[in-house]
């Protein structure tokens, strides 16, 4: 894993000391709320409905066991014993007291963590494929590039006051597990005609009130050009992005208004003009290699080569002998690039639970299991689950037992029970309706073992307002909570998708009252089960038949 150098460590330490002073001045009345608010937001501190909320960055979703233990400690010491993993691979604490936050940030800095770039109109914490470095289909681990972007973007003076927040996601695999097409910039690694790996650059994707799929502005870009090119994009955005209207300030609006071709032309021009000044200063191949060494798989080549298939055999035997374990394996295991290993998704979606929440004990338990079975490494996924990326096939059964003992063995990853959901009106000050109770209700209705296996791959995403933190626009079934005449009601979209075939869901018709939404989703799922052809997932069937049969089922009666 990447280790901060002395420079990083010093920057974070100084930032904590600075914020400690700012909090002290606020509490002493030397700073007004108006003066303090931008300062606290730059340190990840929001004021929500019931309390302050602290959002901690998990750069590109990678955590060590040591870091996860620290998060557990913070949850237990300063909060109500739990944390909430978000769709941006971060963690949020819902109940910290302002007077404690400098101490919390101090504790985080001990494990190279912080809350920088989790708020404000800056380049936010960069996100990545949670299977990065381990996925069988991957061309290269995208995290060295993510780390470069982190170093470049942190406190970049030119990009600290952008028109709006700016989100970058990176994948090194053809299967998009990082939702790159709904980010301000998405980078997808692929090989050019000569076989060299580089990035397709996608710009102007996003959700919120104007959802858009990003447009490709560069088919292939060499890795060592990436920062200069990103800088060119940021400059065009900084210059032309609208600052007069918050709702039109994201880069997606600029790309939409001037067109992707025109935007690309401006970026290329800026890139050529600035190249002489900036390209030289950017990391050369040696520096990229230096960073990449930190991300080398923790499994030695000798071990990888020595795989004799015994581990896989043992895993097959355990699956054959234990039906419950087999079901969990079907949902939770993904193919690994190193023979004899598996990537394991740890679902944070127990039926009826709160998506993405984990208690301090569960965090400690995952940290311990990661140490025993995954070289001390954990990932956070944008689906609000955890991932253990380096598990020996021979040890998967034992790992599962450990997870089961901690209430973390829900066999629903990628299935109907794996609901993605923002905090909604139970916590969030911007919300128009609750989202968690809807997720809980649907988790119970659709998440039965047999039912969800029967339904197959399905993403259900719920947001408590149009800001779309629950990514409802790209859920196969998306649910948006709104308020109408003082009551909660829910708009349903169908056909969204966050992967390499990203699509924005279609609004299916008038919304549903809170007490109707469960039945409505059931009806949608039931319609799919009726019309599907052999082997067709929900999204396949929807793409074949369109919205009509679903509309009819929902509204014809």
């Amino acid at each position: 894993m990447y280790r901060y150098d002395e420079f990083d460590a010093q920057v974070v330490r100084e930032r904590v000391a600075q914020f400690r002073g700012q909090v002290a001045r606020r509490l002493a009345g030397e700073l007004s709320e108006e003066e303090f608010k931008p300062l606290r937001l730059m340190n990840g501190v929001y004021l929500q409905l019931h309390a302050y909320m602290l959002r901690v960055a998990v750069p590109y979703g990678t955590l060590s066991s040591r870091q996860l233990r620290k998060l557990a400690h913070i949850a237990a010491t300063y909060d109500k014993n739990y944390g909430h993993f978000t769709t941006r691979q971060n963690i949020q604490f819902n109940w910290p007291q302002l007077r404690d936050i400098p101490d919390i940030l101090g504790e985080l800095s001990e494990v190279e963590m912080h809350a920088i770039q989790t708020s404000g109109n800056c380049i936010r914490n960069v996100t990545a494929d949670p299977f990065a470095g381990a996925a069988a289909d991957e061309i290269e681990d995208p995290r060295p590039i993510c780390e470069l972007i982190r170093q470049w973007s942190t406190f970049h003076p030119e990009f600290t006051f952008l028109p709006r927040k700016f989100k970058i996601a990176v994948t090194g695999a053809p299967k998009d597990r990082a939702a790159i097409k709904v980010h301000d910039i998405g980078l997808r690694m692929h090989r050019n005609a000569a076989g060299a790996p580089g990035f397709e650059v996608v710009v102007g994707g996003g959700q919120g009130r104007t959802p858009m799929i990003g447009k490709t502005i560069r088919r292939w870009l060499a890795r060592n050009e990436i920062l200069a090119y990103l800088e060119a994009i940021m400059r065009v955005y900084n210059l032309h992005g609208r600052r007069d209207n918050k709702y039109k300030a994201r880069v997606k609006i600029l790309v939409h208004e001037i067109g992707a071709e025109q935007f690309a032309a401006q970026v290329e021009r800026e890139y050529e003009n600035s190249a002489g000044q900036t390209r030289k200063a950017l990391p050369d191949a040696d520096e990229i290699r230096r960073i990449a060494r930190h991300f080398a798989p923790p499994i030695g080549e000798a071990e990888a080569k020595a795989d004799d298939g015994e581990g896989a055999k043992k895993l097959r035997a355990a699956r054959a002998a234990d039906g419950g374990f087999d079901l969990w394996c079907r949902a939770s295991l993904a193919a690994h690039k190193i023979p004899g290993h598996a990537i394991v998704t740890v679902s944070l979606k127990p039926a009826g639970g709160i998506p993405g929440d984990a208690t301090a004990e569960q965090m400690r338990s995952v940290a311990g299991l990661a140490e025993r079975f995954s070289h001390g490494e954990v990932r956070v996924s944008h689906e609000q689950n955890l991932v253990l990326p380096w598990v020996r096939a021979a040890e998967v059964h034992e790992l599962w037992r450990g997870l089961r003992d901690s209430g973390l063995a829900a066999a629903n990853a990628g299935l109907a029970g794996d609901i993605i959901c923002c905090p909604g009106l139970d916590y969030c000050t911007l919300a128009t309706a609750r989202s968690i109770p809807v997720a809980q209700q649907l988790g119970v209705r659709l998440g039965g073992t047999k039912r969800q296996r029967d339904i197959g791959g399905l993403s259900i995403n719920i947001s408590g307002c149009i800001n779309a933190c629950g990514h409802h626009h790209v859920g196969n079934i998306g649910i948006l909570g709104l308020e109408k005449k003082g009551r909660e009601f829910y708009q349903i979209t169908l056909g969204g998708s966050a992967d390499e075939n990203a699509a924005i869901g279609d609004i299916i018709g008038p919304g549903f009252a809170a007490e109707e939404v469960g039945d409505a989703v059931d009806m949608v799922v039931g319609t799919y089960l009726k019309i599907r052809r052999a082997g067709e997932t929900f999204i396949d069937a929807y793409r074949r038949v369109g919205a009509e049969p679903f509309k009819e089922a929902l509204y014809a009666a």
Partner: protein
Amino acid sequence: MNGWIVSANDLVVGTVVYYAADGWSGDIGDAAVAADRIAAKKLLAASESAVRDNRVVEPYLVEVELCRGKLSPLRLREQLRHRGPSVAQAGG
């Protein structure tokens, strides 16, 4: 009967508080109630001195219903602020 009260968040701790005759209280039952819009404006202005005293953050008016001696906010958002999240917390 409907009326208005003033709510805010405690500066140090962040919890929900209500403006009462003798300062700020975590108990909605203690809240000072304004019967009409003019009185509500005055109440809000009075509460703002507490912002200068550094006790609370961003006070604002909340419409409430007084029913059998109990104050109850009209909007769901405020009901949730008053009662806390409607869902059990993982760590609880």
